[in-house]
């Protein structure tokens, strides 16, 4: 029996014999094997770890849901969740506003505009660890760019990474610098695929630029904005590299995002089971957000 292809395609006429019959399995097999071995199996192992007690990196005994209970009683975990939520909310909001502004500014054709776009996306492709270095070189109170500028103007050096609020906002600014380009790109694609008619009609009616934006651009762009915001928020929830380089979570716990806390719980405090449980809770949040994003995209795709 030959394999039926997708219904409605003329491909049903394709008839293969012998090797062609097992071909789809041969072509699918290696990819599935990799994913099973490197993601699915470790996922179950991780689930097992999250219900276990470890000593010297070895699973000693099962403790049921104790690790999860510990998470809900741990003020540092709650603190990390709160810091992460604040960070994601502030950074993504600013990125969306700036990204939308840039997209509107650069939604036209021409060689110059293309060059500008290519320059603007540099921050999002530079290695996140390097982004951390870049911002240490800006914030450092003795040798940083801000210190040098202040020095040139005869002012005293701003202290950014040495106090909690400064470090937190410093991290938000870093994220805005790095990821506004992503929001810009997605929103630009959205703007470029909008229908022209409503805008021509508005022009004929003599509507102002602002009214056109509020009445036509925003409503038409709303689904794209939602998708972009959700996608960026999902990624931002597990921000790690830049914090690791910039502040390691400090000073105090001011920039201790959830992934940093999980990492430290595992590698510094050696609490394997607890760290695994924490990361599972975070992943659950992320997956829920992803489900939301998929539902949005699915609706947009129809």
């Amino acid at each position: 029996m030959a394999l039926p292809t997708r219904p409605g395609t003329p491909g049903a006429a394709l008839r293969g014999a012998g090797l062609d019959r097992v071909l789809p399995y041969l072509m699918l097999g290696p990819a599935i094997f990799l994913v099973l071995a490197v993601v699915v199996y470790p996922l179950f192992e991780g689930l097992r770890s999250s219900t276990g007690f470890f000593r010297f990196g070895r699973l000693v005994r099962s403790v049921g849901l104790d690790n999860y209970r510990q998470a809900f009683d741990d003020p540092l975990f709650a603190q990390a969740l709160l810091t992460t939520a604040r960070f994601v909310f502030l950074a993504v909001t600013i990125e969306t506003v700036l990204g939308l502004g840039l997209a509107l500014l650069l939604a036209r054709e021409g060689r110059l505009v293309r060059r500008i776009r290519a320059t603007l996306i540099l921050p999002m492709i530079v290695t996140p660890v390097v982004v951390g270095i870049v911002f240490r070189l800006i914030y450092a109170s003795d040798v940083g760019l801000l210190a040098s500028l202040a020095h040139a103007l005869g002012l005293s050096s701003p202290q950014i990474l040495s106090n909690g609020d400064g470090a937190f906002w410093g991290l938000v600014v870093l994220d805005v610098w790095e990821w506004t380009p992503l929001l810009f790109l997605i929103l630009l694609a959205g703007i470029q695929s909008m229908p022209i008619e409503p805008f021509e009609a508005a022009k004929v009616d003599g509507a102002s630029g602002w009214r056109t934006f509020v009445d036509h651009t925003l409503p038409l762009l709303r689904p794209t904005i939602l998708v972009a915001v959700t996608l960026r928020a999902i990624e931002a929830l597990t921000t790690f590299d830049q914090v690791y380089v910039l502040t390691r979570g400090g000073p105090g716990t001011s920039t201790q995002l959830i992934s940093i806390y999980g990492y430290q719980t595992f590698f510094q405090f050696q609490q394997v089971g607890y760290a695994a449980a924490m990361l599972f809770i975070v992943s659950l949040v992320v997956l829920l957000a992803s489900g939301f994003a998929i539902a949005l995209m699915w609706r947009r795709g129809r």
Partner: protein
Amino acid sequence: MTASRLNRLAWAAAALAAILFAIAPLIWMLLTSLKTNREITQETSLVPAALTPDNYLSLFNGRQFGAYLTNSVIVTGLSVAIALALGTMAAYVLARFRLPGGLDRYVGFSLLMVRLLPPVVIVIPIFLLAQQLGFLNTQLSLIVVYATFNVTIVVWMMESFFREIPVDLEEAAMVDGDTRFTAFRRIVLPLAAPGLVATGIFTAIATYNEFLFALVLTSTPAAETMPVGAATLIGRINVDWGAMSAAGVIGALPIVVFSVLVQKHLVRGLTMGAVK
């Protein structure tokens, strides 16, 4: 007339401000890397008084930066190549075949779920497994992990490219005596080349930049990649600012050069990788 000129002026000012915001931090890193450490710490000058290559030399003499970069290139190149080969075949099956019991749809959905899973959730079990199997601190462990992450991205992006290619072309080739696989290789793959390029760019950048798994799985220059090598320069009590900024420049350079080379496809690759 004046209003439109004012408009154009405002546009140029806004565009200029955006460009400055995007590149000034990178230029500052470049400038710092060309100063002597004495100038960096004591003179707080904006522009270097004299350019010195010392910081760069120190990275390669004694600090093993050559090894980090070599590891990064090997790990990125191999894992992307493996992922493209395996992922493309899987994506083709998902785009063209209906398997018994809806297996194809089940596999497609599962791969999407895996793609959406935050990698951080498996970092602990992966570390424990690599430890048990004696794979810690090897390039192989990183290649396998990255190839797997990339496979899910490749399947996700390539499936839609294959769907856009009319199935008649393969049928015609098979009528002419091709097997299905030859038809795939000879007819479909070349047509999907733009998709392969976009997918390759996206996965290559993401892999070269990856930090968490490299940090956890590797511990010496035998396997450490560039981001890990750059991060180890920091975190000591006395920061060597010159070396650190040079490391940042060297780390960013391959990505910037790469993005200039693939400029035409870059925006498409990045947008597709994010949204599809």
